[in-house]
């Protein structure tokens, strides 16, 4: 027995982007503790933005000097590989623009502890108080998002999941308007999130019982020698799967999404709909491909059902929604289904895996940025009581604010996947990868993959209906007499919308720009 405890080796350079974000978050807490109230915001905003930009720069540097590690870092706990770095870059960009939205006045409650409608609330409001804790909370959440898809063992992944989720539970409850709805959303998200985390942890325990290790590579290795029909393995896999599928909002674990997206402050919704989704899909891919790649004979038929159900449920339920944020939430569910189609497309050679990985990474990047843009537009359409959520309030918006309505219409078309928008190429890439996978000789899913693509296309057609319905509503309906006012956007919000629009248009015309980067990231596949 070796009784000397070895000091762990940490590759600080490789992990620098993570450390910068977490470090800034901790500094943010100190600012909250020591800086006077009136100074806090002016310290937090640059600190948050700079740390995110800095972390992004570090990611770029790491790719540019081509020092992508070939093995896992931090004693095998974190895998910084091509896909991780791509996902990090995407998450950092998305969170950067989301912080620009968060920075806008009027989204967050003055005093979260005050009872809604009470005199305390009115006083805090009158005093102009602000919860500047929002910024460090966002940084912690972003740090969790970065770690989640890069975690190389199930325990690190679980910790990352919690680091990501806990601040979000809090942030969801901080909406300034319709506070009861917001607090309800926060509570539901917390309860259901805890429930699903328990599943994940239980699954982790089962898998440990099967493999004797929690590292993803170790589990994969154990499978190559052990039985593939061991109930410990199958149940453990199902349980971790539930935890991950919950986070991306796949059916039947999607129920939280509409309620939470609707109740949360819109900038936070934007962060969840983009950043969290990207991180969760990344983690899902890593678990399914690295740890459970040998089990694909079992899980692909099951995920087939989940993907089909998710697409159909998301598309069909979105039709009868009357609230714009709920509609976007169901749209997000449908898109999670499309992403799962890409996750399925993994049969055969490493080349096939790289193709579907590239498709998914591309999809995540373009879908994330379009989503942020769409929610940014939502923040601008306001009634006296807050954002004008009900769709009937959006009638005739095109007549009163043609530019804003036009931009929103464009985002919706991108969601629907109309050619010459980035959304088209995202869907095209994922579906093409799926068909290609099914066409590989020996794939037991064979024709079923084509079937899934057909389901996906039908779901897209149904989805196009409710996207176009909003466009029709905006441009071909008479405006309501007391219709919502269009808030004068701040520079930050303008920048967010402009960047999202540029990316959505630019990638639609010139997909090669992002495809090439995604391809580079995907070609190295995940570290095993």
């Amino acid at each position, binding site marked *: 027995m070796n009784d000397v405890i070895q000091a762990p080796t940490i590759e600080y350079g490789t992990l620098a982007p993570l450390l910068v974000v977490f470090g800034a978050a901790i500094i943010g807490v100190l600012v909250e503790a020591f800086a006077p109230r009136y100074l806090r915001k002016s310290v937090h905003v640059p600190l948050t933005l700079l740390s995110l930009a800095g972390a992004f720069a570090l990611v770029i540097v790491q790719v540019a000097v081509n020092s992508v590690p070939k093995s896992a870092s931090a004693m095998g706990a974190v895998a910084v590989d091509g896909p991780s770095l791509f996902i990090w870059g995407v998450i950092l960009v998305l969170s950067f623009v989301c912080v620009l939205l968060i920075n806008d006045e009027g989204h967050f409650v003055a005093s979260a502890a005050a009872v809604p409608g009470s005199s305390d609330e009115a006083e805090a409001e009158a005093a102009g108080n602000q919860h500047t804790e929002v910024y460090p909370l966002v940084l912690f959440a972003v740090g969790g998002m970065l770690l989640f898809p890069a975690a190389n063992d199930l325990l690190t992944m679980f910790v990352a999941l919690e680091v990501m989720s806990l601040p979000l539970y809090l942030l969801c409850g901080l909406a300034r308007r319709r506070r009861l709805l917001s607090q309800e959303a926060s509570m539901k998200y917390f309860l259901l999130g805890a429930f699903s985390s328990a599943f994940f942890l239980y699954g982790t325990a089962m898998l440990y019982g099967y493999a004797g290790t929690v590292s993803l590579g170790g589990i994969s290795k154990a499978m190559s020698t052990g039985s593939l*029909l061991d109930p410990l393995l199958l149940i453990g896999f199902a349980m971790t799967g*539930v935890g991950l599928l919950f986070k991306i909002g796949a059916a039947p674990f999607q*129920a939280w999404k509409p309620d939470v997206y609707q109740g949360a402050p819109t900038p936070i919704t934007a962060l969840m709909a983009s950043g969290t989704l990207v991180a969760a899909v990344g983690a899902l891919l890593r678990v399914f491909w690295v740890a459970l790649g040998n089990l694909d004979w079992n899980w692909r038929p099951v995920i087939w059902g989940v993907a089909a159900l998710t697409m159909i449920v998301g598309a069909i339920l979105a039709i009868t929604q009357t609230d714009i944020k709920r509609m976007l939430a169901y749209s997000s569910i449908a898109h999670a289904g499309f992403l799962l189609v890409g996750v399925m497309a993994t049969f055969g050679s490493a080349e096939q895996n790289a193709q579907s990985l590239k498709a998914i990474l591309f999809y995540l990047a373009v879908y994330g940025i379009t989503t942020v843009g769409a929610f940014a537009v939502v923040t601008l359409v306001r009634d006296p009581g807050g954002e004008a959520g009900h769709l009937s309030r959006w009638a005739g918006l095109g007549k009163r604010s043609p530019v804003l309505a036009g931009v929103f219409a464009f985002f919706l078309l991108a969601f629907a996947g109309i050619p010459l928008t980035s959304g088209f190429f995202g869907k095209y890439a994922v579906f093409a990868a799926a068909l290609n996978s099914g066409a590989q000789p020996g794939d037991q899913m064979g024709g079923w993959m084509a079937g899934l693509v057909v389901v996906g296309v039908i779901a897209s057609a149904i989805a196009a209906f409710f996207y176009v319905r909003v466009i029709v509503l905006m441009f071909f309906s008479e405006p309501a007499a007391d219709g919502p006012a269009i808030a004068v956007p701040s520079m930050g919000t303008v920048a967010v919308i402009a960047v999202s629009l540029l990316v959505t248009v630019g990638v639609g015309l010139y997909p090669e720009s992002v495809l090439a980067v995604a391809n580079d990231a995907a070609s190295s596949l995940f570290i095993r």
Partner: protein
Amino acid sequence: MESPVEIVQHTAGGVIGASWLMIAFPLLGAFILLVFNRFTNRWGHLLGVAMSLASFVVAVLAFFELLGLGEEQRRQAVHLYEFIPGMVDMGLLIDPLSISFALLITGVGSLIHIYSIGYMAHDEHRRRFFSYLNLFVSAMLLLVLADNYVGLFIGWEGVGLASYLLIGFWQFKPSAATAAKKAFVVNRVGDFGLLVGMFIMWTTFGTLTFSQLGEEVGKGASNGTLTAIGLLLLLGACGKSAQLPLQSWLLDAMEGPTPVSALIHAATMVTAGVYLVVRSGAFFFPEGSAQALAVAIVGAATLLAGAIIGCAKDDIKKGLAGSTMSQIGYMMLGAGLGPAGYAFAIGHLITHGFFKADMFLGAGSVMHGMNDEVDMRKYGGLRKYMPLTFVTFIVGYLAIIGFPLLSGYFTKDGIIETAVHHQPVLGWLAVLGAGITGFYMSRMVFMTFFGQKRWAENAHPHESPAVMTLPLIILSIGSIFLGGYLILSNTLMDFLAPAVGAPEVRPEFHPFTTPGLATLALVAVGAAYAWMKYGKAEVPAVQPRGSFLTTFARRDLYGDAINESLFMRPGQWLTRLAVFFDNRGVDGVVNGLAAGIGGSSGRLRRLQTGFARTYALSILIGAALLTGALLLVGTI
């Protein structure tokens, strides 16, 4: 015949490598002007001109770089990016043919931009006008520079859009709005042909890139396929170039501002059909094949139809529009003759770009001085009041009727001689057409600049400002010398040879051939007859009733009536029938389906109770299902 040289991939940088800038500059201009709309009102027109000039400079530099290369190297494909993965890479083809067009588009285009500063000075939407003009230049350059049919098609649709927007620029006039719509609808027919042609190319040859198509066709293809593709491309060309039977939109398109008529509906866009045919030479091979013959016949028929229409129009712009149809007919005829005719067709296209733009802008200058009056019966004796406009217009006039030694003489004569040699019947029809041209163009000149004043009460004709007359002067200089330079020692033919191939026999210019002399004689007769009727005799200020033939020409050879009875009426019946079926049959199915989906949405929605406990239960059930499914699959 000598075939075109192979297309080589451009490797080094240089101006050719950066030739996408030609497209990018005006596109950026249009973007800035449209996005920052009101804020650019004060300097928007200057930006528009600058962007067009910048494009011109790039085109000139690229032209000289191309000249510096050996003949084998003169077809440079510039790869830009992967457009549709696995199907089309976006790239540009810089070769003598495309660069000739680029020079014409940016050169004449810039002059017309400059002219428009003056012409549109009093229009409150001048900035919007320039943004559309820039958009047009950009799309037109994409059309001629793309190295594949998809890029060409995007440009094709882009110029269609710009044309639509500019014809309807004064959309408060119902006639302008209707004309724009008409142009749009008629062009759809042609575009459909082009698209189906592209579909057949893709399914047959598996590529849409010019270079690869050339190779694939060279390996052999069935005659039927080539004929089908050729005829479909011809349909597309007819739509864009206003050739029979899709000619009807061009006359109405004169509702647009005059610079638009000059740039889009005379000098550049309407010649896109000729470009398409010449660029697609591989499908119109061998000369004399059914599809090539069809091109020549369409050209000959249109050149006569346009000339006849031109004889009867009192609206100066419509007269010029008829003449444009007719001149493009000549180009089509030339393009239908194979490599022997290509150089003359393109040559006539270039010189026509100059003299027709010159005359359109001259007509605009006259209108500018006459309170936007277009009826030539209300003109007369203007030569003393607008001397510069008069002189430049006369130069354009002499060029178009083929007065010896001016531009049009050489290029038109080239087409006629080649046609008489290859297709005698069509050739002699072209000679007849030249005679009619002599008549109607002289009629226009006499009615406008000579004879008695027949002005409206409040007319105070005056010469236009320098910003308008300067482009006229430059264009008229081109109208004098360009033709001789291009044709006399086969300069253009040798330059184009790497791109379109060259005929076996190098043509030599002979001034005194039978068709040449016959043409000159007929033109002289036509001009003399016009002098007797419209120069010497008094022109009635109100249109006389005219004979059966005159009415025939005035009504555009009953083109609209034919379209109406053959297509519009049956089309309307068809739509009514379709609406009936749609309401009764299709809607029933669709609505049923939609109601089904909506109903299931409503029912599923009830699962979303809002209670966290229900959600947790659904997660539990889901987890159970997932586990069960996994275990089940494992045992199969």
